[in-house]
């Protein structure tokens, strides 16, 4: 009984306290590409066809419910068969369906068949983040749920208001955004390194499964500058709800500038890997990388989840020889994904963080150690 009371009061508290919320919408987005507008058109066509059929069928049903009721003295007729009527209501739906199938087929073919793309972006889903590669530009980065969202996931509504999390982008913001040029036909090569994910941007009407070991392709031609948000749309494990997608569509000039800055970053990163880092610097950088990439499974305090994700705290791996841990992080093993896309400095920092935090007493790992193992 006491349990019941506690449950009831907890529930009442939950129902009662509601924070200010973002605007809701009722209908599908029209999106910003030609395809997304075509799809919106199909959706509305199908919707209105259903409304009209519904009005006729439900109209007849409610008419007889009201008019042909016994309490109004209705006497039952005895007809119970009519081949002609059966033919009519088999034939008319077939005609309606054909009328719907024609534009649907046209749009489907447009979605699936791309003659020529201006550029290519490779999207790789992994538990629970996205990696983006621009093969022609030599750019590669990983995109995680932003720290600002992570911080308030477990907060109560009051705490949430206190930290003033940006309302529009809760769970829809990332640390590294995809940047794409406007009015450019982009081919996306979509794959996964572990389970099936699905890369979805509603505004582009682009949603494609990311299958491990296979590459799917999809395309979009953004026509509008702006920021577009989406989410993983295939259950991919624990943090399926926490791997958003953010795309910045920018002018072609801004895109060129972004590419140049990313390439310069890469050069600087490579240079940083050759120097010796202090433990404090490695720890500071390692913590950030750990929280973004590792804490989802191994937990923020390194305790893991028994039976599913091994603990970092007091583990033989983090306190033993560094070579084994390096191999584990770079190449993965079983459920542990490979992190070879991280830079040498990032890998050295995160391993050092794992070996020197949570009460562990492993050795410090330098970026040069990573370089030599690769």
């Amino acid at each position, binding site marked *: 009984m006491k349990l019941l009371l506690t449950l009831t009061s907890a*529930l009442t508290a939950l129902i009662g*306290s509601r*924070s200010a*919320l973002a*605007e*809701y*919408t009722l*209908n*599908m*987005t029209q999106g910003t590409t030609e395809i997304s507008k075509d799809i919106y058109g*199909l*959706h509305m066509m199908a*919707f209105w066809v259903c409304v009209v*059929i519904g009005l006729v069928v439900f109209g007849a*049903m409610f008419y007889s419910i009201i008019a*042909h009721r*016994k309490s109004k003295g*209705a006497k*039952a*007729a005895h*007809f*119970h*068969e009519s081949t002609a009527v*059966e033919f009519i*209501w*088999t034939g008319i*739906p077939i005609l309606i*369906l054909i009328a719907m*199938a024609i534009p*649907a*087929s046209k749009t*489907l*073919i447009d979605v*699936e068949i791309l003659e020529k793309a201006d550029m290519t972006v490779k999207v790789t889903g992994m538990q629970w983040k996205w990696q983006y590669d621009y093969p022609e530009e030599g750019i590669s980065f990983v995109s995680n749920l932003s720290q600002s969202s992570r911080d308030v*996931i*477990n*907060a109560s*509504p009051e705490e*949430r208001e206190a930290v003033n999390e940006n309302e*529009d982008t809760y769970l829809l913001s990332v640390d590294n955004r995809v940047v794409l040029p406007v009015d450019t036909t982009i081919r996306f090569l979509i794959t996964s390194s572990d*389970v*099936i994910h*699905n890369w979805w941007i509603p505004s582009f009407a682009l949603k494609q*499964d990311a*299958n*491990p*070991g*296979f590459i799917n392709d999809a395309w979009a031609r953004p026509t509008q500058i702006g920021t577009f948000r989406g989410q*993983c749309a295939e*259950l*991919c*494990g*624990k943090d*399926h*709800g926490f791997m958003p997608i953010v795309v910045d569509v920018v002018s072609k000039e801004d895109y060129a500038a972004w590419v140049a800055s990313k390439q310069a970053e890469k050069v600087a990163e490579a240079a940083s890997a050759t120097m010796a880092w202090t433990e404090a610097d490695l720890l500071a950088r390692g913590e950030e990388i750990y929280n973004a990439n590792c804490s989802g499974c191994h937990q923020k305090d390194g305790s893991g*989840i028994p*039976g*599913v994700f091994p603990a970092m705290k007091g583990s033989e791996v983090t306190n033993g020889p560094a070579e084994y841990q390096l191999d584990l992080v770079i190449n993965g093993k*079983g*459920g542990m994904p490979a992190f070879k896309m991280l830079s040498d400095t990032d890998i050295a920092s995160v391993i050092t963080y794992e070996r020197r935090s949570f009460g562990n007493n492993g050795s410090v790992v330098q970026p040069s150690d990573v370089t030599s193992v690769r």
Partner: protein
Amino acid sequence: MSATATAAAHDDHHHGPEKGLLRWVKTTNHKDIGSLYMWFAFIMLLVGGVLALGIRTELLQPGLQLFEPQVFNQLTTMHGLIMVFGAIMPAFVGLANWLIPMMVGAPDMALPRMNNWSFWILPFAGGILISTFFMEGGAPAFGWTFYAPLSTSFAPDSTDFFIFAVHLLGFSSIMGAINIIATVLNMRAPEMRLMDMPLFVWTWLITSFLLIGAMPVLAGAVTMMLTDRNFGTAFFDAAGGGDPVMFQHIFWFFGHPEVYIMILPAFGIISHIIPTFARKPLFGYSSMVYATASIAFLSYIVWAHHMFLTGMPVAGELYFMYATMLIAVPTGVKVFNWVATMWKGSMTFETPMLWALSFVFLFTIGGFSGLMLGIAPADIQYHDTYFVVAHFHYVLVTGALWAIIAAVFYWLPKWTGRMYNETLAKIHFWWALIAVNITFFPQHFLGLAGMPRRIPDYALQFSDFNYVSSIGSFAFGLSFILLTYIIVDCIRNGKPAETRPWGSAKGLEWTLASPAPYHSFDLPPTRAEILAESQHS
């Protein structure tokens, strides 16, 4: 057969049920087993419902309040599995057990001992499934569709128990299906032709063939999972030459017939109730039979409409889109026939009729969203969102479950020999009807606005409708307390029911006393009796 031989053969039939609890363990009687199935399904419905309330409570507010994401995924997975395999399917098998022998003029099911076994496997399968919650690593958390490789290389250890449970459930379903086919084809009154059979019998006969076709495919899928997980095969692992998409083809080759397994018997039930309370014969009996058979056939050739985004070739997508849209035709025929049955009838609105009418309305809404989902390019936006969640809850809750509840109220007087409380039952109906729509209708909006399914937390523009949906689900959950009371009250204190509590109802089961005798028909009904009670006259 001489008169004395008949009398001698019947002597040992008339002893009635055994006393005590062992009666239920050892029973081979179709009514006892039917009741066992129904109570098991009802308990599983409550368990699955509690899990659903857990899901909705977590989704009441943005943020994580009650459950870790992994636990949330366990809840959605087990909710789906328990409702599909534990509640809806056993409930329909229970109805088949109770009703088919009475409807075809048979004394009992054709294979009574197998009948006992096919029920008693279920509690063990259900128990194994539920026990995974208490294992290290938790219950299966990969969704009721258990897509590989999330369910193979990346799944908790308890997955092997899940696989075993699915095998057991499959055995049970296949045995149930064989029994129904054998009963309908061999135990039917000699004077009853196939086209004299009531529609519930017809739909279950066709459903049984779907079960026999589909369940072994599911068994194959979980066996491949088992060997992938434990014996080093790579059916679904690209690194070993396998293909995770192949899992989905196999799963949905089972899964699509499965959804019709859960709705065809419902069509049968509705085709009994509407003519009774419209006081008019069912319109288009034979077209109903043909439509059922067409739906069953089509259900085998549309599976990949669940997989439009897996990277299928465009020709495949076009084919599966056309085939899927085609299902709307026979389904439409059924709805039109029901409306035509009501047309110019003399309708009254007792509780079973209220459930049946709201079934027609709400199932059709689920059918409309199904048609929209079938349009492949539009499915790009709908796929794996709450629009899909809304769709299949309209067809499974206000479709399958609605028909089951309608059937319970309709045949309860025949089963128990007592009437339920009509006023309370009507209050319960309106309560459940309003609550279920508050729960599931806003989920259409959530899906269109872009909320993915199976997420424990959501962006803030989804807050309002999630809140509404959760409140609705609490009210819907509470309504089952009242339902339990109404049924128990009927069994214990109900007023005695007449042989024909619904004066206008047709069917051989209404020629039996209320409650129905332990063995339904000692002598097969005559041709004249069969024709007088058939649905097509």
